[in-house]
């Protein structure tokens, strides 16, 4: 972080994230992990993923938190842990202005993560995309289909062990 202008809000961000994490930790206890004080993206992990939707709703509606805005939801592959996961970047628009990232992980094969598509509508398409690219299920998602790849595409392209299919409807797939 060479730029001085960016440095100041960054450190403040971690402090704010810490306060946020404490509020969540009070409520949910050991369902959430310790806060990782990553200076660019402070995050915690949801250890009990069944509770992820409750945590999400709490984060959105608690007056101290008010994470009204989901900036991003990225699917991630953790091949060495044999897990898939999502990373959600959340932010509170308005006077609170704090942001935090949340990670949820699930098993690599047949993993299920509760959907937060109804909490943040942003998550709707992002979860579809994560499903499309990584293949984890989102339970409770209103319309879980592939979004970018064709419906009948085989495999999940962004997994690290992905092998591209040879032909698709008789068309040779390059590489």
């Amino acid at each position, binding site marked *: *972080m*060479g*730029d001085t*202008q*960016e440095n100041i*809000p960054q450190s403040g961000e971690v402090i704010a994230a810490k306060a946020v994490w404490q509020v969540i930790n009070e409520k949910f206890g050991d369902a959430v992990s310790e806060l990782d004080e*990553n200076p*660019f*993206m402070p*995050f915690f992990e949801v250890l009990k993923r069944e509770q992820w*939707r*409750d945590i999400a*709703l709490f984060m959105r*509606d608690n007056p101290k938190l008010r994470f*009204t*805005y*989901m*900036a*991003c939801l*990225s*699917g*991630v*592959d953790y091949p060495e842990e044999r897990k898939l996961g999502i*990373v959600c*970047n959340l932010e509170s*628009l308005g006077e609170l*202005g704090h942001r935090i*990232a949340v990670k949820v992980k699930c098993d690599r094969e047949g993993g299920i993560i509760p959907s937060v598509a*109804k*909490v*943040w*509508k*942003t998550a*709707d*398409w*992002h979860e579809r*995309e994560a499903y499309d*690219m990584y293949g984890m299920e989102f339970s409770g998602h209103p319309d879980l289909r*592939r*979004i*970018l*790849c*064709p419906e009948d595409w085989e495999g999940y*392209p*962004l997994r690290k062990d992905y092998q591209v299919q040879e032909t698709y409807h008789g068309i040779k797939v390059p590489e």
Partner: protein
Amino acid sequence: MQELGKAEHSSVRVTPKGDNRVIIEKDISSEEMILNMGPQHPSTHGVLRLECKTDGEVVIEAEPYLGYLHRCFEKHAEMVDYPGVVPFVDRMDYLASMNSDFAFCIAVEKLLDVEIPRRVEFIRVIVSEFNRIASHLVAIGTYAIDLGAFTPFLFCFRDREHILNLLEWTSGARMLYNYILIGGVAYDFPEGFKERALEFVKYFRPKALELQKLLTENEIFVKRTKGIGMMPADVAINYGWSGPMLRGSGVEWDLRKEDAYSIYPELDFKVCVPDGRFSDIGDCLSRHLVRAMEMEESLNIIEQSLEMMPEEDGFDPRAAIPKRIRPKAGEVYGRAENPRGELGFYIQSDGKSTSPLRCKARSSCFVNLSAMKELSLGQLIPDLVSIIGSIDIVLGEVDR
């Protein structure tokens, strides 16, 4: 858990309202018809497909189908090294490549520890504001075409051409620049760029006024857009809207102010939100007005930064570029204000390889478009076109 279900829905509902909304009497309704709008349709701005359930002229529901322009950006990004990702970023939002590059470089520079020369920051801001004007010109022009006015479109493209010439002069390419590099920019401004850029600002102001008179103030245009596609602020936030879309709903939120990246905190500009005098806040016209106002603000920013930019003889804009870009292990979410909203990159680095372990692009159009289904409920087909136009999608960014 019942409460959970209720609470989940509590804040999310679009109630389409407005003066110009048509009330459809249900007793004359007939059979539903499925109408496929796109992927090759003049007003879907690329290869978007909308599967519309229609009842006469009324669209009961429109379901967007994406992926026709999916070019595997995220997979590509995992295959090539960091500087090699930048050209691919260019091709995502091809109307605002500079801004996209800027966002990506911000993300990577957060991971790396690089000191960015001050002049480089100014160059970056100036070119990306130029590109923002160019992008908004396309947005406004194509919106005019969607509503049947062809002439404003060509006026917009005429002015955009000057910007492209300016950017070609400094970056060497007209559209896909690969100009903002990680840790610097590719070239310094050419001799005389400042004068020409100021001339452009002088040239463009009356042209923007003319555009306003020809299009924005036109009664037919107002009638076609005012009160159409209403999006209340809280729903817009819940949908994750950003950029002109969110500001069109009256939320004063601009990453240039919020994140205060680069030299934006030093510049004097305002966040454009509609004041509700000409438009109903949250409708298509508001979004259009925000774009028109932002062009003016961008001109201000360009003027200011051209004045403030430190002059250096024999300045090497590539001096700060690291020899080998191999960030330490970690993850970062970096973002910048794109003409279409927040363009963010979630980058995960393992500290060993020169290419990202995971590079997720949070594209603004993708998120903005996700509200399409809800916005389209019970609209007329012409209004549907008007709404798609006001979202200002670039399919290259939607599908990545």
